[in-house]
C-alpha cells in the first residue's frame, strides 16, 4: 500500500503538540473532577445478608452490590469441591468446604490464625469495585474464578468516564486550535 510515511504537515510547529497535550490534560482533569463530584451520594447504611454459592469456576451471586457503611453478613456453601473466597481490600480469606456447615476464616494480615465460623461479617468501609477470588486451588481455571463486590457510590467509574470524555474533547479541541493556528 500506499500511505506515505508520516511527516508533519509543512509549517507545523512541533511545540503545538505540547500545547495540544496541555489542552487534553486540562479537559481530562476538569471532566474527571466533574464526574467524580457527580458520582452519586452515599446511602444510609443497612445490614445485608447474602448467601454465596461457590462452584467451578464462579460464584452465585457473581456480583454483590452494597453501599459504603453497610454491614455485610456472608454465608457460604460449595456445590462441588473446596473453594476459597479471598476478598480484595477487606483482609478476608475464607475456605469453603462442600459438606461442612462452617467455613475457615483467615485474615491475611494475621497469618496463621484460622477461625471456624458459620457467618462472616464485615463493614463495607471502602467504596469501589473489589474482586473476590478463589484462594484454594480447585481445578484448571482456578486462577480465573472470581466475582465482584461493588461498594457504592463507585465514584471511580464516573470519574474515569469524565476523564475519558475530557480527553476526547480535549484532543478534538487541540486539533481545531492547531488547524486555526496553521491557517493564521
Amino acid at each position: 500500500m500506499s500511505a506515505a510515511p508520516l511527516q508533519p504537515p509543512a509549517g507545523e510547529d512541533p511545540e503545538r503538540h505540547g500545547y495540544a497535550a496541555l489542552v487534553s490534560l486540562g479537559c481530562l482533569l476538569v471532566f474527571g473532577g466533574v464526574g467524580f463530584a457527580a458520582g452519586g451520594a452515599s446511602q444510609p447504611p443497612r445490614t445485608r445478608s447474602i448467601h454465596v454459592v461457590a462452584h467451578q469456576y464462579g460464584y452465585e451471586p457473581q456480583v454483590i452490590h452494597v453501599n459504603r457503611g453497610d454491614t455485610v453478613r456472608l454465608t457460604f456453601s460449595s456445590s462441588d469441591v473446596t473453594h476459597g473466597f479471598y476478598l480484595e481490600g477487606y483482609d478476608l480469606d475464607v475456605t469453603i468446604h462442600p459438606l461442612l456447615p462452617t467455613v475457615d476464616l483467615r485474615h491475611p494480615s494475621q497469618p496463621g490464625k484460622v477461625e471456624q465460623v458459620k457467618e462472616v461479617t464485615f463493614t463495607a468501609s471502602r467504596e469501589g469495585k473489589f474482586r473476590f477470588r478463589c484462594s484454594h486451588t480447585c481445578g484448571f481455571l482456578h486462577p480465573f474464578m472470581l466475582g465482584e463486590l461493588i461498594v457504592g457510590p463507585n465514584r471511580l467509574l464516573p470519574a474515569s468516564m469524565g476523564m475519558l470524555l475530557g480527553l476526547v474533547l480535549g484532543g478534538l479541541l487541540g486539533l481545531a486550535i492547531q488547524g486555526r493556528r496553521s491557517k493564521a
Partner: protein
Amino acid sequence: MSALPHAAPAPQPTPGPKVRSGRIDLFLRFPRLRWLAERRWFQFAVVLPNLGLFLLFLSAGLFGTPVGNRNIIIVFVWILWWFLLISALVPFTSRIWCTVCPFPFFGEWAQRRALVQVRAVDPKKKKGGPGVVIGRNRYFGKNLKWPKALSNIWLQNIGFLALCTFSALFLTRPIVSVIVLGSLFVIATVLHLVYRQRTFCSYVCPVSGFLSLFSMASMTEVRPRDLDVCQTCTDKGCLAGSDKGWGCPWLIYPSKLERNNYCGLCMECVKACPHGNMTVNLRPFLSDGWLKGYDESYKAFIMLSLALAYSVIYLGPWAFLKDWANIAEKHDWAGFFTYAGALWALALVVLPGTYYLVVRLGRSLAGAPAGTTAPPTKDVFLGFAHPLVPLGLLAWVAFSFPLMLVNGSYILQVLSDPFGWGWDLFHTAHVAWTPVVPWWTPYIQVALLLTGLFFALRSGARHARRLFPGGARALRAFAPVALLLGGIVAGFFTLYVG
C-alpha cells in the same frame, strides 16, 4: 565448515551527530553496548540460557504436575513471560524478545551449520562448494523463497487468533502448553530447513505478528546513523552479509529501516556494516507512525478484540463464559462454538466493519475542497487504524497487570518446586498465595487505558492533519473515529471499574 576469521579491525562509528530528532544514539552514549552487539557470540550467549530454560519448561510440562498454577511452564510462560513481554520488553525495547527467542535456534543452526561464526564467501568464488550462496554468505538447506502471496502477516493474524481461541486450554494445562511451545520449535526448525533465513519469524510465528505491530510503539530502534553513508555505500554488507555478519536474516534492508515492525534486533547489520553506521537509538514512544497494509491493521483489530474478550472472560465474574471457553473440561460444544464464533466475528468483522463505517463517515464529513478529491478510503482507513497500536498495547498491559499482581506469588512457589513434585529448592515453595495490592488494580487500569487513548488520539490527529489539510476538515474527519476510540475505552472502563 570453516568460517572466515575476523581479520579486519572493527569499523569506527561514523562521526556524528547526525542523529534523527528526538533520538539518543545508545552506541555513542554507551560504547560498551556497541562492543557487545558487535561480538559474534552475543546472540548465541543470550539465546543459550533461554533455550535451557524453555527445555526445562517443556520437561516440567511433560513430567510435572498437571495443576497449572503449580507448574513452572504455566507460571513462568503465561504469567511472568507474558507480563514482562507486553508490559516492559515491547514498549521499551522493541523486539528484544526475538534476539533471545529460542524457537529458531535449531533451525538456524542447521541452516548456517554454525552457532557463532559467519560463513562468508569470496564474491569472486561464489560457484561451487556445499550449500547455497546468498549475498556473501553460505547457507544450507533448501533456502526456497517464501511465496509472495504469503509475504505479509495474514498467516500470523489467523494463526494467533486460532491459538488464542484455545487460550483456556494452554493457559491452564501444562501438557497443552508443551504442545503449543513444542510445535513452535518443530515448525520453526522445519521452515528454516526449507525456506531462507528467518522466514518462520517474519511470516509464520504467531508471537512475531503482534510483536511486529506493537514494536512500532517501542522506545528503542535499530537504524542507520547517517543515511548519507548508506546512500554512498556500495558494499551493502547489512543486506548481503560480510565476513563479520550474516546478511539481514529478517530479509529486510536495514539501511532503509523506517519502522521497527520487521526488525528482530539480531544485530547482524551492526556487525556486517563496513562503516559502523548501524546503531541502536532511544526514541519517543510511538515513533513509527503508519501502518502499511490491511494485514497490519487487522492485527491491530485482532489484538484489541482479544484484549476485550479476555477481559470479559478471564477478569469478569461470568462463570458461564469461562465454561464456554473451557471446552476440554466442560465439553459444552454449543457454548464453545458460540464463544469462538463471537470472538472471530468481533475480531474479523464487527470491529473492523464498525471502524470502516466510522472512517467512511469521517471522510464524508470532511469533504473535499472544490477541484480536489478526498484521499482514498484505504489511506484514511490505514491512517486512522494506527491509533489502535498504542490503544491495543496499553489495553493488553491493562489486562495483564492484574494477572501479575494477583498471581505473582505463584512465581516464588514454582521457583522452588518447578515440577510440583514437593521440592523446596529455595525455601519459597510454601509461600502463601498473596495478591499484591489488588485494590489498586482498577486505578492502574484506568491510568493505562487513558494513556493509550491519549497516544491514540494524538496519532489520529496527526493522520487527520496529514490526510485532510486544513483544521476544520481534519477535525470533521477525525471526530467520529475519536468518539469510537473513546467508546471502546468506555467499554473497558465498564468492565474494569463499573
